[in-house]
């Protein structure tokens, strides 16, 4: 386990925080850390900036993210990594599609490669890390368009050379079900699954024998299309198959 010192924590919205820490990590956009709250759990977290100072941006879900959000400047921040592959280097016209905290991971790319950013959130209060020009949708219409980010994006799919996607599995499923499979856009998707080890040996993150943590987390759309389990079911901490709400086996 490594550790760095917290530089500061910025509150992005009601429950999203960005933690800057002093490290000399050699990481690329798309990679993640296993971060640790000593005495508590270890959880996966994407880097939202891979240059120094490195950052993570997270929503406080449970124990661990809450504990981490309470760290103060100078406190120790524990992690291991970086793990996973990274987004390929884009050329031409680029789009980013972010759902929920998926923007955290894409943000690290955005700091290096410009592009059109499509952001989806439940409500206005859930938005964070926004910059001018981002195309926004909310489920309730409290900011930007009302609807899903996929609806907003799809009509423009063919305008892009590279598309980078990070968000909830159902959002991604929605995209890959509907997008024209012959689109000229090269679509890369960062997947998220329950992770225990982060280093490719425990099998808890695997989809059809593909490990999200080590073979991914970033896959081309073609790779995702081959995963018959994708969008249908995931595994709980026991490795038991659990259907997504609107999934069927």
């Amino acid at each position: 386990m490594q550790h760095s010192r917290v530089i500061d924590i910025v509150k992005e919205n009601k429950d999203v925080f960005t933690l800057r820490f002093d490290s000399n990590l050699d990481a690329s956009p798309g990679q993640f850390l296993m971060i640790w709250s000593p005495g508590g759990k270890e959880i996966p977290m994407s880097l939202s900036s891979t240059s120094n100072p490195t950052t993570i941006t997270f929503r406080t879900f449970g124990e661990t993210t809450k504990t981490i959000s309470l760290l103060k400047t100078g406190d120790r921040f524990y992690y291991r990594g970086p793990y996973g592959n990274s987004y390929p280097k884009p050329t031409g016209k680029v789009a980013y599609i972010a759902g929920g905290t998926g923007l955290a991971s894409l943000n690290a790319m955005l700091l290096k490669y410009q592009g059109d950013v499509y952001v989806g959130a439940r409500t206005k209060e859930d938005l964070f890390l926004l910059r001018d020009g981002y195309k926004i949708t909310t489920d309730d219409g409290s900011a930007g368009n009302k609807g899903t980010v996929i609806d907003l994006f799809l009509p423009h799919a063919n305008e892009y050379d590279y598309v980078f996607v990070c968000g909830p599995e159902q959002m991604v499923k929605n995209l890959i079900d509907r997008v024209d499979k012959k689109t000229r856009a090269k679509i890369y998707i960062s997947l998220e699954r329950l992770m225990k080890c982060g280093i490719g040996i425990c099998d808890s993150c695997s989809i059809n024998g593909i490990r999200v943590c080590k073979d991914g987390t970033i896959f081309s759309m073609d790779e995702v299309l081959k995963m018959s389990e994708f969008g249908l079911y995931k595994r709980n901490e026991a490795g038991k198959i659990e259907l997504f709400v609107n999934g069927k086996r």
Partner: protein
Amino acid sequence: MASISTKIGNFSLENPVILASGILDETSGSILRALKSGAGAAVTKSIGMQERKGYPTPVISEIKTGLLNAVGLANPGIDNFVDEYKNFPEKKRTIVSIFGGSVEDFVTLARKVEGAGFDKVELNLSCPHVSGVGSEVGEDLEMVEEIISSIKTKTNLQVWAKLTPNVTDIVALAKASEKADAYVLINTLRAIGVEIYSRKFSLSNVVGGYSGPGIKPVALRAVYDVYKETGKDIVGVGGITTWEDAIEFFLLGARAVQVGTALLYEDYPIYNKISRGIEGYLDSEGFSKLGDIVGVMSGNAALQSH
């Protein structure tokens, strides 16, 4: 080219490199991937009676000489397992690892495994970090004996007994497991990891199992001791990361090896790498088949014929 096929009990394998239990074998998809990547066979993660979440993270900790883990026997439970493997195409090359807290548990599990169309079980008598099962059962010689003879009487399964090295006398354990078709030696060493800056344990469960290169010398000793005393079929496991390591186990009496932690270092190509290495060694040393080197250093030639 020398032949690297081998036989454990009545199970013939084209190649002697097997995926060890608990590493990349929680899902049927990963078992298939290991077999497609060149593993001769694969052992599943240990399956118990009930669904078990295992311990909270952190459940693994990488150290210089290997890996500490206390996953805590996370598993979907036998019924969900059977469900998932209904149409599984590789049942003959898959050994189902089971663990339980009583003779009845083991028998029930074994029957369900057999009912699901598998023909081999590995008994986890050796997990060092979950109470009431694993090595706590595995250290009770009478219970071990009863578990194995019950399964052998009540099913037609091939039974592999996986033993714990965390005992004074592993040979006594092996003798209690005599009715098994093969021994699997060894499970992890009981161990602890410490984080000095947070002053917390590396694993949420405090005590974990130690695997990887650092335990190989202990595993070799176990294989040597047990082979010399029993001459039975042995599957060697513990710290194998190269084909040279595998050869060491064969020379002492193992007929096959399992590889776990090394996947962390070399990933799926390791199976072919080790298999090709074994072939190369046999060829260049002038042996025509793997069996020619099994146990040659343990001076138990009479027992080597198969």
